[in-house]
């Protein structure tokens, strides 16, 4: 069978599966819509969390980023998995015991204040919208490259699918679809990795393979370091970022991860506190499989790519080279007119520009794997993007229908009315996300970093202090969150968007990049919260009692309004 048939077949089967699951698991009540009725098993929740969490960024972009940045790419690996330890140990069990539907719910109740709730809703919406736009773009990318439709048509098809099962099924539909999506995406990620690992090193386990030797008995990583030196790049295993910056970026990603509302909300779907702990464990185990494979793929892809293109005749390039050229994500400019491709670190002599995002998608083609494997990767990338998009849409719709309408604007809304509002806001959210997917703002990458920074600078300290200190009051938490967000916004606007006269790398405070500044803003948030709470009245007795209560796991009850 040819490639196109394979792709249509695999993508078609997986989409039919998702829609089938959505019809089977329709949500009938707000509780089913927001938290799947609170009766999901820890294993299923672990699988769903893994799919929810691993987005188009993890599946499509991450291995490519590591491939180009080598050691510096470790910030994503450690940052995005290390955050799970914080989530499992410091947040998930207590938030589950607290038993609410959303993160703004926790902030609003723990800090007995609608101002705190509003700040939290604002952050949740901002984080989720930035993210979801990136996912829709990922869907569009896969469609345009593999299904040969226009990128806008691709985004619209993706919107319809997500709309269908997120609006119909709510959290219940999303949960079981995500279980299926995890299976699809992990299979799609592992199969080419195993194939290529055997091809290059003879070892079927990619995690070991990339520390192995090639056919000539040279260690693969040594060979890649050598290639990098020859072409003028920083050594693959050393990287070029400053140690301090690596430290701060890793911390910002970890804390940002732990503060992401669409991940936190998944722990509200299980029955009891011990199940919340367990599902965090399962989730990281399932995530680990992909995250330890990604650096192996990065090394294989990088070596294969350099060896295939560098100093080779342009006219002898394989098919994949021209297909990617057509998408504009790969371009060749023969500066010295010798008909050969020179791939070099020196930008004045380099003739090949490759978008980092294509490495995972092009990898099986570069390695010459069979058609069905390439088709599988397309289906896997779609599963990754759609599952995360659906999770984020749910957070957006819950923030609007539950936190804004039910809790603030119209508290006497009926259950049916709230469900309608939830579905309507999901529809609006999909349309907005689709709009940004079709017309991506130039600053998508920058705003994604901003989203992490904001989550780190706002939510994380407020939640941690809310659980681990009884004396933290609304004055402390609100001023901490606001100052944290403003610092982060200021730093991003100054150094990413060139506001306030802009600034270059040399002007960074203490040499910390905007990506790593979330850590600084978070520390400031902690300090401000603690200092202010010392000078303002203690929280009411009932609130202190709530804090004592969430520390004890028994009698968690079910998630309630």
């Amino acid at each position: 069978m040819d490639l196109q048939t394979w792709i249509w077949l695999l993508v078609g089967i997986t989409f039919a599966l998702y829609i089938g699951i959505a019809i089977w698991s329709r949500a009938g009540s707000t509780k089913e819509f927001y938290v799947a009725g609170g009766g999901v098993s820890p294993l299923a929740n672990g699988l769903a969390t893994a799919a929810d969490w691993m987005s188009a960024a993890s599946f499509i972009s991450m291995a490519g980023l590591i491939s180009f940045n080598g050691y510096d790419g470790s910030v994503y690996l450690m940052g995005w998995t290390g955050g799970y330890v914080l989530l499992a140990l410091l947040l998930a069990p207590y938030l589950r015991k607290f038993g609410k539907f959303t993160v703004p719910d926790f902030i609003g109740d723990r800090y007995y204040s609608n101002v705190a709730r509003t700040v939290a809703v604002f952050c949740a919406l901002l984080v989720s919208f930035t993210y979801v736009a990136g996912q829709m773009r990922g869907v569009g990318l896969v469609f345009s490259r593999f299904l040969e439709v226009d990128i806008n048509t691709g985004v619209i098809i993706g919107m319809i699918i997500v709309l269908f099962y997120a609006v119909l099924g709510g959290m219940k539909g999303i949960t079981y679809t995500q279980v299926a999506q995890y299976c699809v995406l992990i299979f799609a990620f592992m199969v080419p990795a195993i194939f290529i690992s055997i091809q290059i090193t003879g070892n079927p386990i990619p995690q070991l393979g990339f520390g192995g030797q090639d056919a000539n008995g040279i260690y693969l990583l040594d060979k890649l370091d050598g290639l990098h030196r020859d072409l003028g790049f920083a050594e693959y295993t050393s990287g070029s970022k400053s140690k301090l910056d690596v430290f701060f970026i890793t911390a910002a990603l970890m804390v940002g991860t732990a503060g992401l509302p669409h991940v936190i909300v998944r722990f509200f779907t299980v029955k009891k506190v011990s199940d919340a702990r367990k599902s965090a464990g399962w989730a990281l185990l399932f995530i680990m499989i992909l995250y330890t494979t990604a650096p192996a793929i990065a090394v294989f892809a990088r070596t294969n790519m350099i060896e295939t293109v560098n100093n080779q005749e342009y006219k002898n390039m394989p098919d994949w080279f021209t297909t990617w050229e057509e998408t504009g994500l790969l371009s060749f400019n023969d500066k010295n007119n010798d008909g050969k491709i020179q791939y070099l670190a020196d930008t004045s002599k380099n003739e090949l520009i490759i978008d980092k995002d294509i490495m995972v998608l092009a990898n099986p083609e570069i390695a010459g794997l069979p058609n069905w494997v390439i088709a599988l990767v397309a289906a896997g990338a779609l599963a990754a993007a759609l599952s995360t998009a659906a999770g984020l849409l749910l957070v957006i719709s819950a923030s609007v229908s539950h936190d804004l309408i039910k809790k603030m604007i119209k508290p006497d809304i009926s259950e049916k009315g709230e469900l309608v509002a939830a579905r309507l806001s999901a529809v609006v959210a999909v349309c907005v996300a689709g709009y940004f997917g079709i017309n991506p703002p130039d600053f998508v990458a920058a705003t994604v970093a901003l989203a992490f920074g904001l989550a780190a600078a706002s939510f994380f300290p407020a939640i941690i202090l809310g659980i681990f200190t009884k004396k933290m009051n609304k004055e402390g938490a609100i001023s901490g969150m606001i100052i944290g967000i403003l610092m982060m916004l200021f730093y991003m606007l100054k150094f990413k968007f060139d506001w306030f006269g802009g600034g270059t790398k040399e002007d960074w405070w203490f040499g910390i990049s905007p990506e790593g500044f979330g850590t600084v803003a978070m520390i400031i948030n902690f300090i401000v919260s603690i200092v202010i709470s010392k000078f303002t009245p203690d929280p009411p007795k009932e609130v202190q009692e709530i804090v004592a209560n969430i520390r004890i796991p028994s009698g968690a009850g079910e998630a309630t309004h």
Partner: protein
Amino acid sequence: MKKMKKSDQKKYWKTNLKYLTVLLTIWFIVSYGCGIIFVDELNTIRMGGFKLGFWFAQQGSIYVFTILIFVYIKLMNKLDKKYNLDS
């Protein structure tokens, strides 16, 4: 739900905090310690084709993270049992 004595609540929470401190110390050492701060020193040691610091940053830390969560689950389940909280 059974009512838990105030003193037991305190003890339960203290033990929990002790576990958290130990586990998060290990969490810090494998990622920030081995993967970032001491990466150059560890890179002088080799494990097959891997430089050790690089391995910790891209592989080892993630394995340890996963183990840490499962150890935490085990410890807390035992603690819950001791205080009859495993409903």
